[in-house]
């Protein structure tokens, strides 16, 4: 069976689709050399994200093994994740330089 999504790091709580997914279809992605599958609760366009775990409001969203932002509403496993329901965490650049 072919994958139609990519999980970039084992720590990620989102996967990214590589084709357009209809509601109810499965998103399949590799973890190492095995395929995992999750049902899409909503329609998801190609190259957009699907939650592979429940994400609470305010919880961090992880892709590439890193924090890409936080959920601004609760997101259920299988739901569409986009700029509409996640936002960057605020940063203080000067602090980041001084802290090191």
């Amino acid at each position: 069976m072919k994958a139609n999504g990519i999980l970039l790091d084992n720590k990620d709580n989102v996967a990214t689709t590589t084709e357009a997914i209809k509601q109810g279809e499965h998103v399949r992605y590799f973890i190492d050399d095995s395929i995992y599958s999750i049902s899409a609760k909503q329609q998801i366009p190609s190259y957009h994200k699907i939650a592979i775990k429940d994400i609470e409001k305010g919880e961090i969203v992880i892709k590439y093994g890193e924090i890409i932002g936080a959920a601004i509403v609760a997101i259920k496993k299988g739901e569409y994740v986009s700029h509409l329901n996640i936002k960057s965490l605020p940063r203080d650049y000067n602090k980041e330089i001084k802290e090191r």
Partner: protein
Amino acid sequence: MRFLGYKRPDGKVGIRNHVLILPTSACASETCRVIASQVSGAVNIINQDGCAEVKGNEEITQAVLSGFAANPNVYGTILIGLGCESNTPDEMVRIIKEKTNKPLHKLVIQEEGGTVNTINKAVNLAQKMVQEASKCMREEVNIDELILGIECGGSDSTSGLGANPVVGHVSDRLVDMGATSMMSETTEFIGAEHILAKRGATPEIQRQIIQICKDLEDHLFMVNQDLRTGQPTPGNKEGGLSTIEEKSLGCIYKGGTRPVVEVLKYAEQPTKKGAVIMDTPGYDIASVSAMIAGGCQIVVFTTGRGTPTGHALAPVLKVTANKKTFENMKDNMDFDLSEVIVGEKSISYIGDKLLDEVIEVANGKITKAEAFGFSDIAINRICKYI
């Protein structure tokens, strides 16, 4: 792991065997082109700088030109100057000799009495040099002699999802075997530089990673250019990128996950082996030029939309995870990574295949850009010409 390379007298190992016809300034550039056209095995580079530049720009020009002469893929150099340029031929000789003891000749157009006399002498020198170079034989060396440059350009959705993670895997494998992997394009770090900084092997390196991003932002603010506001763009969001961190991470991922052991200035040579970062613009050609001046023998270049770019001195291996692009621009694309996107293979599987290709190219297989003789060069600038 081993590859076949040319051992140079300065201790480095090259994977090509060029004789370089190197102009100290723009005024000598055309003469170098003519010289190289007369001698098979000689290559020139186009130089638009080397005079009428502030000291800061002159230092950058010198670092790049001397870096090209010192690149291990070069057997020897014939340096051509005009005679009155601010980047003097004698100063270029001094700087090159600080970096390498490989064969070096200097000719000055105004001293020789014009371009025809200069071309005459240089062609004779170059003919002898390419014959000497042809006696060099490849020898088997350890993979730790390799410095891989990593670049991305013409990115699309497949870059951050497929091509860049695959190259990141190649980078990790090479670093684990003792080789050096160099990433650049500071512009692309902005948005996730705090994440990239975590890869720094020491607090000082972490600080330097943040600092080069801050310096670039401050520099561009001076001409009213803002790199953060409006990112990701509406087009990015349509393409699936939700935050600037996600966009920037997609680029950063091409450098792999191993600790960064050095942060280099533009065109500076690394003093350590492992994963290193060079401070360059995001502009592909200026970035590839700098990494080759810094000693990279080979560059892997990920692209989504496709680009023909190449370099006179080093193979630039073009890879894409976009199947349509690979088919559409087949004369310019070297390796197809799209099996990752269409879900047929995993990132690590394709990464291992790409590493095999990198070794083949190191051993002598020429890239499509090399077959066309494409040679793109740009040298970064800090301000106007004088």
